[in-house]
């Protein structure tokens, strides 16, 4: 899932001076605990199947630290529940949930653990069992007595969501001064307003400030100068910034730089930079060299809450259109605390008296705050704040639950940059555009009371009656269903929520797709999620489908289905499906709420008919792929090796067996197809099939070992020898430059040795998978390396002679175009004849078993073979090898994912959903957001309006459509455009061309009806109920300028 359309990477806030002391209190604490033997349990092994997506974000080290952390979450309102959920999913050692309050109807608007049956029970006690279900590896317990500082000492991090300021000061003082310090977080959501405060102690070490891999570069030259200028090869832009520290390795000539000493970057440019070093007297640069960024730990000095309250410093901003807002909210939250202290309760919704006294308190606090005094108090905003302050709204809880959950992970692990120290946020734009009357906000003793107190009962009714389509039931989908159920969306018989997903539940889903449990593995995601969501709110009117949203399912998601929808929520993990949904929403003019996450990053985009541009209007550049020649012969990093390994895996174990099977199933048809193709590719396929059935056929496990051993020789020795024979180390280009220059790395052949464990592991996985593909029984000893070594050592390996093919000048055959250019057709005939013979020697009905790469099964040897292939190749080229886990992330294209950013994204989307369902909001009220919890960074902006196009008096956007009435012929249609002063030069339907004025043969179509041409050429059958056909028309105006007209609907019946 890509967070698409990332705004220009805003840099991490680098506010504090750096300190070199790696022994910050964070690491000191952990060391102390370990030394004291405080951790009694044996170090737990990480369940890598369960946590693979999260491991891809955090790495093993961070996960281990998390596993050793005890966390307290105090205040089990909606926010506390979200935080506890995220921590249980992340896998800390223990979560203790604390509360002294009892469950009220009011709590049901935000806390998804609670049901009406829980009313009257202690809030923490009521949540324990359901929280435990999320992760059995985490110790969950409830604490229901009044909290004292003694309770706090056993935790690494404590979180408070429902605490008054005096108590907070007391606890924070204790945590701040504790040895080692305890990380303290206070967070609150009050209606559409939220706050977070972090204090991780006087000296906290951040081990990884941004979670990004260290940047690297391949050196092309280094000057003897002061400062020295380093140029890098121009195939990849450098991403160093001034001030970064880098180390050098593999530099030839100027070997002084290989000393491992970090050097500071300056004048960073796309392909060069300088370092603070006088290299005038160093050796002269010859060749080679890699430069790698060194990530330095950073020490942060947090202020205690007491001090930070009066001197909050720089407050993290989320929305640049609300530049002045943080100090205002800082005051509002203080005023609320005072109000609660005076009245023993929050201000009541819509109560003028309470609003008045709240304003008075705020004014008094403002007067008393010396140098931070606000000039004026925005009365309207403060009234809004007071009126909704008691409500813990689910979307706000989801958003802040994500943020706070991440801060706890940072506190426990030192991974990512903590929030330093306050964060304030509001979403007042989510309020309806019409005025809310006090009687409209009154509670009616149902689960939506809290939400009604903010938005009024009119919007509540509209939400309950909404017809919603959620596409995808993965991580985002689960969070959305929980949110929608709590908000009451589609929770009446008049409303309906349709969710669809064609996927089934796997173990690796469970670490964040929190509606699923162990026992659901193998079941349909949408059905299980729908059942779980109905348990949260039994009124939810939900229909779960298993259809992928794509052109093939338009009979399920037909016009009538679409026309009845009020809003579409994407919960997808790929761009293609997003593009498809965008296209459908555009067509049916439905609002589309889009979101995506990538590790700690998330992105949400609002697509609102006629107000905003559509999703497809802007795009990220497609992922960069390594050039073919690099992957084939000149890899220079492990990604290249893994790409190669995956393609070899597919070729050997999937494609070739498939090819063999299609030959064996129907030899005549297969031969005919190959003859028809008659090209080099067909010939190559046949050669592979032929090898598989003759020379390389395996009937015993020993055959498989032999094959694996010879493959090793071929891949890691013979091919390298051939390549270095063709291009010797000293080869020069026609211009005289060395052929083997950066970024190319000169390879060296491997000498097989049964004593080398990695060689043997390759043999083991390759022979086991080969046996599987041939249906050969795999003996017990196959996994015994010493036995394997015995067999391998007995295999005769022919010596390899590089082919002389290229020195053909003196070769007689050269003039006749030797082996490579013998007629493919003749070779194909020959191979086909041989295949017939080989087939006769097989058992009747013999088929191979193609093996499809499956990354998530640790026992299937797939990743073993792929990492073996990649690492041996890396060894050929002296590229650093990777472990199996890292190999799995890269080769399996595992998308890093964590619960926190997912939860936050859905919270942000649901804040927009209030606007969409209420309707009538101007575009200025909507927000698109990009956030990165690792930095942390929040960047919210108004959506971009759609581009307006014009021709003569008509103007339109992508949301418009042109309608043509009547069953027109092509000629009549062209005339219709001509009457508008447009020349239609190309007309298409789907991806088929109906007409192009350059094609003479298309002139025959002029007299035909457009709909008939579409039937004939595009094979489009317009369903009975639809009266129109949609076509794309490319036009020019009189001045031959292209005019980008909207989709054209021909109403032919």
């Amino acid at each position, binding site marked *: 899932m890509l967070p698409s359309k990332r705004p220009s990477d805003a840099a991490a806030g680098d506010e504090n001076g750096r300190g070199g002391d790696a022994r910050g209190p964070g690491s000191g604490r952990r060391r102390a605990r370990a030394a004291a033997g405080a951790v009694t349990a044996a170090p737990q092994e990480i369940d890598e199947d369960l946590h693979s997506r999260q491991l891809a974000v955090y790495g093993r080290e961070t996960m281990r630290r998390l596993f050793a952390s005890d966390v307290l979450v105090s205040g089990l309102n909606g926010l506390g529940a979200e935080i506890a959920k995220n921590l249980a999913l992340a896998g800390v050692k223990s979560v203790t949930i604390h509360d002294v309050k009892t469950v009220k109807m009011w709590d049901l608007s935000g806390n998804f653990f609670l049901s009406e049956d829980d009313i009257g029970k202690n809030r923490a006690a009521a949540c324990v069992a359901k929280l435990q279900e999320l992760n059995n590896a985490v110790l969950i317990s409830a604490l229901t007595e009044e909290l004292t500082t003694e309770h706090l000492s056993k935790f690494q991090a404590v979180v408070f969501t429902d605490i008054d300021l005096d108590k907070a000061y007391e606890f924070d003082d204790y945590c701040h001064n504790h040895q080692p310090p305890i990380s303290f977080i206070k967070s609150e959501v009050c209606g559409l307003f939220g706050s977070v405060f972090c204090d991780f102690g006087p000296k906290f070490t951040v081990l990884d400030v941004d979670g990004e891999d260290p940047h690297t570069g391949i050196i092309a030259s280094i000057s003897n100068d002061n400062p020295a200028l380093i140029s890098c090869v121009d195939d990849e832009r450098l991403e160093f910034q001034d001030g970064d520290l880098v180390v050098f390795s593999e530099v030839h000539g100027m070997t002084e730089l290989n000393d491992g000493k970090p050097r500071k970057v300056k004048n960073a440019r796309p392909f060069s930079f300088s370092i603070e070093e006088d290299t005038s007297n160093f050796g002269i640069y010859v060749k080679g060299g890699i430069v790698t960024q060194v990530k330095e730990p950073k020490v942060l000095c947090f202020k205690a809450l007491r001090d930070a309250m009066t001197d909050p410093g720089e407050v993290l901003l989320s929305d640049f259109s609300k530049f002045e807002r943080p100090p205002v909210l800082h005051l509002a939250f203080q005023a609320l605390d005072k109000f609660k202290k005076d009245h023993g309760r929050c201000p009541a919704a819509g109560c003028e008296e309470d609003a008045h006294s709240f304003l008075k308190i705020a004014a008094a606090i403002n007067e008393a705050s010396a140098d931070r005094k606000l000039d004026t108090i925005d009365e309207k905003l403060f009234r809004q704040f007071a009126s909704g302050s008691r409500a813990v709204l689910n979307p706000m809880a989801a958003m802040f639950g994500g943020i706070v959950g991440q801060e706890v992970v940072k506190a426990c692990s030192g991974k990512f940059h903590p929030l330093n120290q306050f964060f304030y946020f509001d979403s007042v734009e989510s309020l309806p555009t019409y005025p809310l009357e006090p009687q409209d906000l009154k509670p009616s003793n149902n689960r939506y009371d809290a939400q009604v107190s903010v938005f009024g009962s009119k919007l509540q009714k509209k939400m309950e009656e909404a017809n919603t389509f959620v596409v995808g039931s993965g991580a985002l989908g689960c969070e959305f269903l929980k949110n929608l159920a709590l908000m009451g969306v589609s929770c009446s018989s008049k409303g309906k929520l349709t969710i669809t997903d064609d996927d089934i539940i796997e173990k690796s889903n469970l670490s964040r797709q929190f509606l699923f449990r162990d026992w659901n593995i193998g079941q349909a995601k949408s059905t299980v999620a729908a059942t779980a969501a109905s348990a949260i709110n039994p009124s939810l009117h939900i229909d779960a489908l298993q259809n992928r949203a794509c052109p093939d399912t338009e009979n399920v998601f037909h016009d009538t289905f679409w026309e009845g929808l009020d809003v579409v929520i994407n919960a997808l993990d790929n761009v293609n499906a997003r593009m498809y949904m965008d296209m459908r929403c555009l067509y049916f003019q439905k609002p589309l709420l889009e979101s995506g996450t990538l590790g700690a990053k998330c992105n949400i985009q609002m697509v609102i008919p006629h107000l905003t541009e559509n999703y497809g209007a802007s795009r990220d550049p497609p992922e960069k792929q390594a050039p073919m020649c690099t992957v*084939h012969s000149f890899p220079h990093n492990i990604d290249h090796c893994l790409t190669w390994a995956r393609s070899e895996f597919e070729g050997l174990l999937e494609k070739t067996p498939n090819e063999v099977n299609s030959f064996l199933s129907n030899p005549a048809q297969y031969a005919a197809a190959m003859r028809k193709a008659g090209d080099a590719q067909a010939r190559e396929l046949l050669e592979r099939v032929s090898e598989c059935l003759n020379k390389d056929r395996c009937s015993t496990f020993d055959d498989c070992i032999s094959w694996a051993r010879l493959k090793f020789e071929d891949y890691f020795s013979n091919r390298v020898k051939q390549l270095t024979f063709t291009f010797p180390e000293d080869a020069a280009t026609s211009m005289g430059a060395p052929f083997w220059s950066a970024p190319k790395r000169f390879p060296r052949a491997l000498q097989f040795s049964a004593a080398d464990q990695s060689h043997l592991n390759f043999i083991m996985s390759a022979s086991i998978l080969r046996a599987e593909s041939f249906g050969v029984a795999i003996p017990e000893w196959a996994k015994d390396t010493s036995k394997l070594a015995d067999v391998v050592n007995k295999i005769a390996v022919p010596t390899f002679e590089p082919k002389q093919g290229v020195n053909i000048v003196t070769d007689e055959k050269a003039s006749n175009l030797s082996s490579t250019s013998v007629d493919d057709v003749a070779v194909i005939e020959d191979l086909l004849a041989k295949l017939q013979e080989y087939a006769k020697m097989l058992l009747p009905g013999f088929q191979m078993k193609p093996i499809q790469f499956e990354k998530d099964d640790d026992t299937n040897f797939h990743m073993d073979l792929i990492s073996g292939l990649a690492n041996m190749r890396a060894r050929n080229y002296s590229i650093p090898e990777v472990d199996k886990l890292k190999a799995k992330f890269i080769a399996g294209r595992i998308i890093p994912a964590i619960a926190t950013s997912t939860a936050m994204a859905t919270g942000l989307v649901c804040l927009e959903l209030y606007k969409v369902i209420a309707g009538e909001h101007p575009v200025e009220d909507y927000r698109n957001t990009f956030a990165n919890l690792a930095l942390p960074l929040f960047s919210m902006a108004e959506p971009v309006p759609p581009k307006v196009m014009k021709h003569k008096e008509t103007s339109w956007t992508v949301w418009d459509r042109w309608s043509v009435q009547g069953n027109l012929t092509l000629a009549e249609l062209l005339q219709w455009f001509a009457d508008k002063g447009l020349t239609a030069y190309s007309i298409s339907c789907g991806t088929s061309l109906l007409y192009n004025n350059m094609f003479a043969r298309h002139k025959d179509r002029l007299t035909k009806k457009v709909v008939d041409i579409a039937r004939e050429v595009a094979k489009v059958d317009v369903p009975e109920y639809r009266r129109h056909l949609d076509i794309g028309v490319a036009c020019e105006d009189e001045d031959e300028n292209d005019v980008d007209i909207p989709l054209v609907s021909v109403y032919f019946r």
Partner: protein
Amino acid sequence: MSSPSKRREMDLMKLMMSDYKVDMINDGMHEFFVHFHGPKDSIYQGGVWKVRVELTEAYPYKSPSIGFTNKIYHPNVDEMSGSVCLDVINQTWSPMFDLVNIFEVFLPQLLLYPNPSDPLNGEAASLMMRDKNAYENKVKEYCERYAKPEDISPEEEEEESDEELSDAEGYDSGDEAIMGHADP
């Protein structure tokens, strides 16, 4: 720039306006063949190749996939698959480029200035570096043998080729500033 949905049609149109012969397969716009002539004054002059062009859903954001269907001897073209290793068609593609750029500039440049330092056909690259004459002879023999107009005439099964209006000429247009470099 026009909306992506129109780009296929516009680009195809521009290509035909520039007198390239295009073979469509059942009027689909996802995949078609373009006749490409070796640049004048190059060792590939006289050769003609049928180049397969695939435009994915993501075109023009994603580059088109380009492959020679009849054989060509060139350091940066895979002999078996006909795949081209060229940075402007792969790594540095921009949605500002179109099909005319590919056939007027990128491919002619590639044929005029092969880059043996980043070979896809190692044998061709090595030969070019070691023995220019032998290399040129081999290129010409390949042209002679595989790249005659009759080698690319559409097979009978393929319906309706679009013969009209397009006899290729004028590949020497050097006025475009965008140059292609073989992939690093």
